[in-house]
């Protein structure tokens, strides 16, 4: 990919390519008790800047993101499961050293990509039922270029098979780079829960709720849009009605 733009003091060109793969085994958790999915994706390239009329290579890009999700079905249905989801994305705190080891996703250019919507968290990572995916603490796995190490643990249970179900979950994440200006590494931790009823074929009503404790990553004005104080811990509760009609 070649980008030519002038966002900063000097025009730049970037050649970036992505290489990655995903894998899955027993995604629907029916072959046996264990299900594993994941991906590895890397962005590699260079940035050249126009300085004094000459294009000069200024930054080497090499970032990677990886995910591993392991499910164990302990009961009858796919809703009787324990799910552990781990996510890593490499990070960087600037390009002054001539390298950028963070992750570049489609979000960098305004197209959705790198959103992590199926982890089961609501406030730390975006949730699939929430329309505005930019309200999560980590709305893109690049985490503003700082990268992250995080994960979720969810325990779900079908109280009545294929009719009434619920789950409780926890999520936590750490920035791989300390937030500049009084900030730390801890992005935060979340507890959440959900219960739902299957009213008919592909028709569900669900009540969701979550609370998140923000970490010292939010003590930095660079993280808070210029505000020095850590924001109040967020919570959410919402009711959804889902009906897939076909």
């Amino acid at each position, binding site marked *: 990919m070649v980008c030519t733009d002038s966002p900063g003091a000097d025009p730049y060109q970037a050649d970036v390519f992505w*290489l*990655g*793969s*995903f*894998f899955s085994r027993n995604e*629907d958790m*029916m*072959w*046996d*008790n264990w299900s594993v999915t994941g991906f*590895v994706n*890397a962005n*590699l390239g260079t940035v050249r800047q126009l300085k004094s009329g000459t294009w000069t290579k200024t930054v*080497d890009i*090499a970032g*990677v993101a990886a995910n591993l999700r392991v499910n164990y079905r302990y*009961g*009858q*249905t796919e809703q009787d499961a324990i799910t552990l989801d781990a996510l890593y994305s490499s990070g960087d705190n600037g390009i002054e050293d001539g*390298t950028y*080891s963070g992750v570049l996703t489609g979000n960098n250019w305004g197209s959705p990509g790198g959103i992590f919507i199926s982890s089961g968290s609501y406030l730390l990572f975006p949730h699939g039922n929430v329309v505005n995916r930019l309200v999560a603490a980590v709305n893109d796995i690049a985490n503003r270029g700082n990268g992250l190490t995080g994960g979720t643990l969810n325990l779900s249970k079908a109280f*009545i*098979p*294929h*009719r009434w179900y619920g789950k409780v979950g926890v999520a936590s994440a750490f920035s791989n780079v300390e937030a500049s200006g009084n900030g730390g590494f801890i992005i935060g931790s979340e507890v959440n829960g959900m219960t739902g009823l*299957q009213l*008919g*074929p*592909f028709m569900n009503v669900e009540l969701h709720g979550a609370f998140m404790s923000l970490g010292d990553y939010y003590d930095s004005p660079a993280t808070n849009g210029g505000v020095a104080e850590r924001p109040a811990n967020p919570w959410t509760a919402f009711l959804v009605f889902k009906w897939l009609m076909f």
Partner: protein
Amino acid sequence: MKYVLYSVLVSVLLITGCVSQRPTQVRTMADIGYPFPVRQVVLDNDLSVAYMDEGTGDQTLLFIHGLGSYAPAWKKNMDGLKNEFRCIAIDLPGYGHSSKGDYPGDMRFYADIVAQLIHKLDLAHVTLVGHSMGGQIAVTTGLGYPELIDQLVLVAPAGYEQFTNGQRQWFREILTSDAVRLTTVNQIRENFATNFYRFPKDAEFMIQDRIAMRTADDFRWYCDIIPKNVRGMVNDPVYDFLPNLTMPVLSLFGEYDNLIPNRFLNGGSTLEIARQGSSRIPQSVLIMIEKAGHFVQFEKSDEVNAAIRGFLKA
């Protein structure tokens, strides 16, 4: 950093790209191997029914398989019961080694087949053992030919769960011959796995046979009969007629049956449906088998065999 990343990614690509499968192939469905010798009986309408006939005894167990299945699905039950009973497992017409053709595939058609087979083989003291759709066929036979049947053993039978008119219509329309024909290997595997609480390794032969039969010349008739069977089950419901059964009936269910009740249309517990159906039968015994799914006779064959033995000797 870059070189490390290149190495890791190339390795991941190689690993994820190297999954291959080479399915077994058969020329006709009759080439699929069975665990016991297969015999054929020709009925009045020139239909040929394949069956495995093992063991001896005063009582005959006549095993009827379910939708999309075949006689070998009973092999563990025949193994476990043949020392006390004569065990006959049939392939329904349209399936396995039996004749194929443009058959109606409804429940009364199969009940007539079962009755004819009992006459042709001159069987006495017959207990029908039907699984899933085979259970509904057994009930239909018991209602239509009560004089031929001593007892019924219904293993996770279709017909205990009720459906609305709209749901029946959905069943009629959802499954087509092409959908059966084009079922992918992964989907075949998942369909079988859904029949079990924990898929046992020794059930793998069912998956391999189902994959292999796709290359058979007569596979198209198998694809044709399955949607007809589904329509037959919803068009000939037996729920209202269960009180008319005159013989003793043993109902067996796996408590973790993911097919009964239908998980998309109704949901709920299997026990609820099992009680609902069996309570309508005058001489009824219900046994729930723990930690078993829809294919309970294979997954928990020892428990099922013991339950059948106890029921027949009571």
